[in-house]
Structures are given as C-alpha cells and as structure tokens.
C-alpha cells in the first residue's frame, strides 16, 4: 500500500484515540480537528478532491468552531484552568469497551469474508463539472431537502442556545436549580 495512505491512517487513528482519551475538553476538540484534517487528506489521496476540500471547510472551518464555542460556554466557573470532566466509573469503562469489541468482532470477519469486487489500476476521475451535473440532475431533490434541513437546524440551534429572556420564562420552572434569571430585575 502507498506510504501516504499509511501515514494518513496512522495520523487519524492516533489523534482520534488521543482526542477521546484526553481529559481536557479543549485538547480533545483540537485533536479531533487534526483527525478531520487527516480524513480530508485521505479523501484527497483517494482522488475525491471536492469532498476533501468540502470536508476541510465544513468540519475544520465550521463544526470545530461550534464545538469550541460550546466547550467555552459550558465551563462551570469563569476561569476554570483545565476543563476537567469527572472520570467514568470502572464498571462503565469495562462495559463500554466490551460492547465495542463485540461490535468490532461482528464487523471485521464480515468484512474479511465479503466477496468484494475490486478494480485494480488508478481510481475513477471526478471532475467538479461531473459533480455539478449529478447534483443538479438526479440528486436535485436531495440538495433542496438538505438545504431545508440546514435552515431548520440553524434556526432550531439558535432558539435552543439563545439565553431565555424573562418574559417567556415558564412560570412552573422556578425549581431551585440556581437557574439563571437572565436579565430580569431582582425583586429587592
């Protein structure tokens, strides 16, 4: 196999596992960004330029920002040095890993046994014009649906994340969970 593929694969696996193990949320987010860059490299290696670059723009440009903003907004105190996370109990770790290995045990032999039709030689060439024609042609409906999904999710995310102002504060939710009063005047 080509050296490039092995290098990229190594990068992806190492950074992904480091991201998932790391205790500092910011470090894990940034390491995951490295994984996404590795994956974009893999797509370029496979010859799908357009996908590689769109992966770079969407994930490294956009999603990483959303993740980092989310991490910063959910810190408990203002200047918590390390965004530490309470460690999971041993039982949970063992159960999780067991389930994962069980799934892996299912997938890998299936993959090995499957009669895959291989095509040797250089991969298919993919031009932007070809993608354009496909998107505008048979997949036009899918493009519009994805557009709607994106808009809906954007508005939904905004509504969920925006701080709830006083007036639409439901009366029954004044439980003592130290709920942030938002901008409401403190009844002195």
């Amino acid at each position, binding site marked *: 196999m080509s050296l490039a593929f092995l290098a990229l694969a190594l990068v992806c696996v190492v950074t992904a596992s480091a991201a*998932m193990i790391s205790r500092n949320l910011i470090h894990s*987010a940034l390491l995951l960004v490295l994984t996404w860059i590795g*994956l974009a490299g893999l797509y370029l290696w496979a010859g799908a330029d357009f996908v590689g670059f769109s992966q770079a723009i969407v994930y490294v440009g956009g999603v990483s920002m959303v993740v980092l903003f989310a991490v910063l907004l959910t810190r408990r105190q203002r200047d918590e040095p390390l965004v530490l996370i309470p460690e999971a109990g041993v039982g949970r770790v063992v159960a999780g890993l067991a389930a*994962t290995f069980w799934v892996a045990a299912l997938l890998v032999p299936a993959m090995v046994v499957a009669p895959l039709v291989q095509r040797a030689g250089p*991969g298919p060439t993919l031009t932007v014009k070809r993608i354009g024609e496909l998107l505008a042609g048979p997949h036009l409906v899918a493009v519009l649906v994805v557009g709607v999904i994106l808009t809906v999710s954007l508005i939904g*995310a905004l509504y969920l*994340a925006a701080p709830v102002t006083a007036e639409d504060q439901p009366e029954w939710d004044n439980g003592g969970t130290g709920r942030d009063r938002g901008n409401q005047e403190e009844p002195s």
Partner: protein
Amino acid sequence: MSPLHLCLLLSTVLFCIGLAAVLVRTSAILVLLGVELMLNAANLNFIAFWRYGPGGDDTGVIFVLFSIAVAAAEAAVGLALVIALHRHRRTIALKAANQLRG
C-alpha cells in the same frame, strides 16, 4: 489484504473509537464528538468503495457530500442542546440529563 480491505479496516477502527467514546465518556460534548467521529468513519467507507469498487457510479461521493452537510447540522443542534442543558442544570455531565421534566 487488498487496499479496499485496508480502508475498511481503518474506518472500522475509527468507528470503534467513536463508539467507545460514546459509551464510556460522561461529558455530553465528548459523546457528540464521538458520534461525529462515527459519521466520518462511515464517510470514509463510501469514498473507499467509490475508489476501489466496480466504479462507473459516483453516488457514493454525492452521498458523502450530503452526509457532511447533515452531520454539520446535527453537530450544531447537538451542541445547542448541550448549551441549553448547561443553562438548566449548570453542568454538562450526562448524569444530570436523565429527567424528562426541565
């Protein structure tokens, strides 16, 4: 071990890392990152099959494009939920998000 098998193996490894993270970790954000990783592993499969498969058909690539777009939307909504959760419960540990009320 043909190149296709190697690609599938790599995506399986990534998928399992994501799954392990989802199952083990207690922070909501890390679970979302795990899910994100699993989605990326799936995309890698599509591209692998497009590259080494019988070929002549590019729907795999198109599917990956849509999958990236939807995954971005999903990440945005997921993290909005996490922020809303944080505002309610003052913490993003998954333990706190087990009641349906609130």
